[in-house]
């Protein structure tokens, strides 16, 4: 399969990349790892006149950990996330989630930024970013701006990012506590039938705080305040987990597709959320 013809650009810095996007308008798309975009171009489901490859922009590849403040450049690959010793220490849920994305070859190319900015409800990083309460850094013609992950996703493939903006980095505050990213998929390389990211803090045997988000169970990632509230202050026993799971299920809106009917997805979601909470708590 050969994609339709396009012009290829490889800018050396963010300003040049933004300049290209501004000049070329909606005929241009940025290329990160390409493992969502290139298959769509080959299937001719995405028609792109200008491809702006970000691989030469060194500023997009850095990982900075300053105390509990973590900043990850958009072009850091899943493989690099998995191998990063500092991140494994301060935010091990990133590694756990990244290991469940696609397969080794895809993780060698696929980036955190591409996974986040594409807006595919099946991508795992958007849900994880909800759980982490991350902030996204966007660069555009008017400079840089910040958007909260929880306010970024509008609908499937629709985000707050403008056509002439580039996601440059994600930032979040790492909080010590238990974590789990639990994902059910039909096979290696598939997107989640249901996945959940859970972070939980423990004080005096009780849940001090919790953050619960879900992947591929609505047309955007879902962060459930109600699920976190149901867990907070409890001993995370069976009743509390059941209540939190029920609260999370009330916040999702799965649709029927080749991964199954709505009823099945809700069933799988309930199991995945429960497992994620229990595993996160066991690590808290």
């Amino acid at each position, binding site marked *: 399969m050969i994609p339709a013809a396009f012009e290829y650009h490889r800018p050396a810095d963010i300003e040049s990349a933004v300049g290209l996007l501004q000049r070329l308008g909606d005929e241009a798309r940025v290329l990160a790892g390409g493992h969502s975009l290139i298959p769509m171009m080959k299937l001719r489901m995405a028609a792109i006149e200008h491809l702006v490859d970000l691989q030469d922009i060194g500023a997009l590849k850095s990982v900075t950990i300053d105390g509990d403040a973590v900043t990850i450049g958009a072009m850091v690959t899943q493989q690099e996330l998995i191998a990063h010793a500092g991140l494994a220490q301060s935010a091990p849920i990133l590694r756990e989630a990244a290991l469940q994305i696609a397969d080794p070859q895809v993780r*060698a190319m696929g980036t955190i930024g591409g996974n986040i900015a594409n807006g595919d409800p099946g991508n795992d990083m958007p849900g994880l970013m909800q759980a982490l309460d991350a902030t996204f850094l966007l660069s555009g013609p008017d400079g840089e701006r910040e958007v909260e992950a929880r306010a970024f996703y509008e609908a499937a493939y629709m985000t707050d990012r403008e056509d002439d903006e580039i996601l440059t980095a994600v930032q979040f505050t790492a909080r010590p506590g238990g974590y789990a990213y639990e994902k059910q998929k039909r096979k290696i*390389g598939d997107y989640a039938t249901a996945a959940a990211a859970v972070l939980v803090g423990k004080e005096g045997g009780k849940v001090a705080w919790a953050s619960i988000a879900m992947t591929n169970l609505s047309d955007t990632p879902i962060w459930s305040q109600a699920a976190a509230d149901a867990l907070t202050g409890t001993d995370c026993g069976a009743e509390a987990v059941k209540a939190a799971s029920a609260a999370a299920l009330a916040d999702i809106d799965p649709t029927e597709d080749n991964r199954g009917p709505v009823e099945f997805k809700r069933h799988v979601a309930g199991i995945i959320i429960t497992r994620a909470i229990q595993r996160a708590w066991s690590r808290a």
Partner: protein
Amino acid sequence: MSKIHVKLTVNGKAEELLAEPRELLIHVLRERLNLTGPHIGCETSHCGACTVEMNGKSVKSCTVFAAQANGAEITTIEGLGTPDALHVLQQAFREHHGLQCGFCTPGMITRAHRLLEENPNPTEEEVRFGMAGNLCRCTGYQNIVKSILAAASEINAAKEAAQ
């Protein structure tokens, strides 16, 4: 659409060519450089038959544009061994029945090569996880895993003997 001047180092040899931006790395390798070891299987980034090494990473060359690979060092199955001097992995696949039809084998071995570079002494589970991006439709995976573990032992034994 303007063509792009692409420079690659493929199996240690410098190559230069003009490519359309939409030309995929697999097509450049197979049709321009006559390296038909990497195969085109699913063409949708699933099967791994097109796996090559690019700058020390395993990639699916059906999902990389040649323009993206500009400046890269590429290793294909042709760069690992020859019919007269098989690579340890090739020999192990042969001895342990790690192939039947052979279509997936170049991708399997190229991927296994990188896996053993990164983890010279993997467990069976690590081999299975590390090979998850390569599909085989004839043998099942039992003998492929066995071949890779055997090659790992042999490489490690050779290393120890050399020390």
